[in-house]
């Protein structure tokens, strides 16, 4: 698998590779769930199912459990980390998290979610990844491989 993540010029046409900074180490892959809306933790998700519940959110009703969650960043209550912490213990955490804006909410949330997480990308993942794409994340090496659906 690791060879696929090499950033060679030989990358197939339907594969995009991003580089970012490690927030939480580890390797994971899964289907992308992408939103340009920031995500609230407390009052924004149901941690037992990983479902977005915020009233006017684009992903309302969808679950990130097992997905590679791609989003701009965190907002709202400081209950962010504990909601994602519970989601992990409930088995409803994302497989990985890719986000653009660093905040304490998301840093701590990612740390306690124990899922690989990256930020500070060379290109904007929100523009390159669509919901349904298959995404492989090697946070230790700072590499994301996107296989377009």
């Amino acid at each position: 698998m690791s060879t696929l993540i090499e950033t060679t010029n030989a990358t197939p046409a339907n594969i995009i590779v991003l580089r970012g900074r490690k927030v939480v180490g580890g390797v994971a892959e899964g289907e992308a769930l992408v939103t340009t809306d920031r995500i609230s933790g407390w009052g924004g998700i149901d941690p037992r199912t990983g479902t977005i519940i915020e009233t006017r959110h684009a992903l309302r009703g969808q679950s990130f459990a097992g997905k590679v969650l791609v989003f701009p960043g965190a907002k709202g209550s400081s209950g962010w980390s504990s909601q994602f912490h519970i989601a992990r213990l409930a088995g409803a955490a994302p497989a990985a998290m890719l986000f653009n804006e660093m905040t304490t909410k998301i840093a701590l949330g990612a740390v306690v979610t124990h899922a690989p997480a990256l930020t500070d990308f060379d290109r904007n993942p929100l523009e390159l990844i669509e919901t349904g794409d298959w995404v492989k994340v090697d946070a230790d090496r700072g590499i994301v491989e996107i296989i377009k659906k």
Partner: protein
Amino acid sequence: MKLTDEEQAMYAGDRGVAVQRAMDLLVRYGEALGAESLVDTNNVCGTVGATMPFLRDYSAKHGGFDAVFSEFNLDSADVIEIPKVKVYSSHLQQGLDPEHAERQNVHSDVVKIYRAGEAYTGKLGIQPLNTCAPYQVGNVPVKGEHCAWMESSAVIYINSVLGARTNAEGRESAGAAMLTGKIPYWGFHLEENRGGTHLIELDIDVRTVADWGLLGYYIGEIVQDRIPVINGLQHVPNMPKLKHFGAAAASSGGVEMYHVIGQTPEAPTLAAAFRGQRPLETIRYGAAERRLAYERVNTTGKDTQVDFVMLGCPHYSMEQIWEVCQLLEGQRLSGNTQLWIFTPKATKQMADQAGYTKIIEDAGGFLMTDTCSSVGRVMPKGTRVAAVDSAKQAHYLPAIMGVQAWFGTTAECIQAAVTGRWTGALA
């Protein structure tokens, strides 16, 4: 991250296992942030309660409060014996009001857990403020004080209005800070990150608590987690107004700091507020924007028959309780409507003493403490439509409890409680 000798010793386990786990979390967290070091703090506000169902189950399965603190405050699956906290630590809001448990549909077993938790945290040295507004009950940080606070409405208040320095911490980082007196030196702890980013020009007078709430709700959605600078204020606000403003801005966006020119302590002038930089954007706030905010915050309100009026988000002050008493005195609630008002326990003590609790109860309402409807998920049974005077509560209550929520002034909410009908409108 660069650690001092004492931090190294804590990290290495020389100060005990709990402190070691706390340092381990702080280092992982600091590195996730990209922080270069930790900073000393002697003022931590967090939550360590174990009354919500998921945590109760965890506690029962894994060995009680130490297990909960280990997992949910230190991110440690091993159960560690938790020592007394090292620094001044306060507890934020809880999940229920033990004195209104039955009314809140909380089982007496849960109240027992609450009481046991109270004794546990008291012994650890965590002050039971039990409120989202610690600055209303004695924890009033001073300008420049490095804090490690959770609770977005409190974070934005102490950063902006008091000039203290905190990021929005989480349950785990606050727990680790209590045991170590350390927190990542990042974000709002650093002078260079406290300058404004967006200029908000007021085209209308913002004077009432409700108007401050609308302004906050509007701005938060636009600036998200950046730092708005408000210019053109015509009247000096007060604590309730800035409290509602900040809570709203923190809910619709993720605002953790703002400036008001000529008002907040780090914004004597525009240049000072922006730290000499140019605003990224200038946003005008006039009658149209106010209307838009009003419509957005009232997104879920449909039916005018109101079952439940919820006040006290953020937790009410004595001044606000007195205002309600003046509106309510001598009236009776509609038979179909309940009125719950939330305040810190310490504030309720004064309200009891002054006779204000009795005025509320005589009208058929209740003054409750320690929690709120969104955090405790506590509402009268069968509530379909709620009325609130808080943009924050209007934002969260529908999402969390699946009800409709009307937002309006305190007077409109009391009117709804008395008549059972929502007649609020933008004045």
